[in-house]
């Protein structure tokens, strides 16, 4: 389904190659219709995060265009759209991981529990602990399994050894990894399989007791079985955490999420309950993307 977008994937808006030029015109025609107007079916659930006219620039590259998106609490919200449309950028803006990229400019607000995370006096360290992040490629530290999960706690400080051990176990259980690693907590995390490493990274994020989990294509580097395990885990985690997941895989979006946002060249085209977005798209472009007819 998604393969058919490959021509789009390969032509970022900024290229001015011969083929790219045609693509550009196409996309711009699509966007000018209503670039910043989102077809919105607002969620009824209480909101954990709300962005308001969020704009993000990498230098002169306008990567996120006036995005206003609600993120309901203790639900899974999927972000989909062709490659390069700004999903990762949007996700990183929520826990201010964009701060570490030089030459980024941000305007608008990201309200997290009704407080703007870009307001003055916000403690970024605390913010990032409250919004845990899981990356596309598993990135365990070259330390033991135990030390990986304990990392955030040791950074925070103030935990006794037994508290740390407890939390490590709880987090590994929470990430459905405990049974597989309980007998080798002191072995290097790099010896785990890719899927186990990714669940370890989830456990690592859970250890600091976040409220939100931001996942950027967490299963894209994994095999189908490991992917299913991650998806099952996401179902479990939804009981306690608000989850935002970027996914390239449309079936995955329908399997794991309750809400879906569809991005195109930096704009949020459509947002709503996943079933509605997939079955009754309000925007032609969403429909085309879902039908794999995009581009």
């Amino acid at each position, binding site marked *: 389904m998604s393969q058919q977008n490959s021509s789009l994937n390969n032509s970022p808006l900024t290229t001015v190659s011969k083929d790219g030029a045609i693509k550009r015109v196409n996309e711009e025609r699509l966007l000018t219709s209503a670039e910043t107007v989102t077809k919105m079916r607002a969620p009824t659930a209480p909101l954990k995060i709300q962005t308001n006219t969020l704009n993000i620039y990498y230098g002169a590259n306008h990567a996120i265009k006036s995005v206003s998106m609600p993120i309901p609490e203790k639900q899974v919200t999927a972000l989909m759209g062709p490659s390069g449309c700004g999903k990762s950028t949007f996700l990183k803006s929520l*826990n201010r*991981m964009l701060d*570490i990229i030089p030459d980024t400019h941000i305007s608008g607000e990201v309200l997290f529990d009704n407080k703007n995370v870009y307001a003055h006096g916000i403690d970024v*360290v*605390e*913010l*990032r*602990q409250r919004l*845990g*992040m899981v*990356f596309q*490629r598993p*990135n*365990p*530290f*070259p*330390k033991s399994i135990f030390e990986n999960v304990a*990392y*955030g706690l*040791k*950074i*925070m400080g103030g935990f006794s050894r037994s508290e740390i051990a407890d939390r490590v176990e709880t987090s590994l259980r929470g990430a459905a990894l405990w049974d597989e690693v309980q007998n080798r907590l002191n072995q290097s995390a*790099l010896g785990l399989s890719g899927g186990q490493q990714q669940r370890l*990274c989830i456990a*690592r*994020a859970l250890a*600091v007791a976040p409220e939100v989990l931001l996942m950027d294509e967490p299963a894209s580097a994994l095999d189908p079985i490991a992917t299913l395990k991650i998806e099952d885990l996401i179902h479990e985690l939804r009981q306690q955490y608000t989850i935002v997941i970027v996914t390239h895989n449309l079936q995955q979006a329908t399997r794991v999420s309750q809400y879906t946002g569809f991005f195109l060249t930096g704009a949020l085209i459509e947002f709503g309950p996943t079933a509605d977005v997939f079955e009754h798209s309000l925007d032609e472009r969403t429909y085309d993307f879902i039908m794999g007819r995009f581009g």
Partner: protein
Amino acid sequence: MSKAQIQQADSAARLAGSGKFSLKKLFDDSATIYFTICALIVIATLLLVYVNIGSQAYQTFTQWHISLTNLFTSNNWDAVNNFGLKANFSGTLMLVILTVFISAPFSVGMAIFIAEIAPNWIQAPMRGAVELFLGIPSVIFGLLGLIVVVPFVRNVMNSLAGAYLYNGYGIIAAIIIVTFMVLPTITTISIDAIRAVPREIREGSLALGATRWQTIRNAVLPAALPGVMTGVILGVTRALGETVAVAFVIGGAEQFPFTVNATAPFIHFSNGSDVLTTLLLFNFKEATNNTPLYSVLYTISFMLLIISAIMIAISRYFASRRVYR
């Protein structure tokens, strides 16, 4: 060409090559022979060095009946009958340990600054400067030591002592010079090790709420540690083997690098001492074949060979533990 065509041409070439004369095969074979000979020459040379030096060294014990304990524990050296190397061992040990203890933290700090903190446009020139430093011949360090470090040590130590007691030569000047020589070695290798840690590791740490410093200390440095240790061991090897630069400032006297006595400041540095390498350098031209001195000098050489082989083994161990390169 289609795949089938290529295959056809390929098997035709192979047919032509089998049995009959083929230029390609000749090149292949002669290259194999050439590289095999090169490898054999290297191995043979190494063996020759070890066997030659080892057998000469052995005579110290078989022909001259000087015991290993005597070499290690006696302080008495006259180059004729007494060959106590304790002072020189102590000198070498002091030089290596202090040099590396001073330069390692400095080098790692510098590497962190260059690789993690300095803005991009500064990084390349700074790294270039460190590499330039690395390329300075040791005789230049020796000269600078003589012109700058010896007078500096003399002035500082005499003013600390409150009397003219020190001429500036000796272990302290050697340590200062060799520290500067070891610094770029550890720094460049540490920079590479830190750079090799992937961005994802830093992001993973920052996303858990770690500050930049916590990330460097708890995620980046541990990940880079095996690489950094390789650099430190190479630093040790350099400090251990350095001869020329040390010879300029060490003073060449067969006495302990320092003495301890009851009067303040209790430790009195000797005006001139020797480390193993400089002892070799200063004595070899006078040593004649078939004398105990000759054999003892070979024994020292052999020990240096063995120690550096051990160092290489340790650095190989650390290199094998590197996760990122």
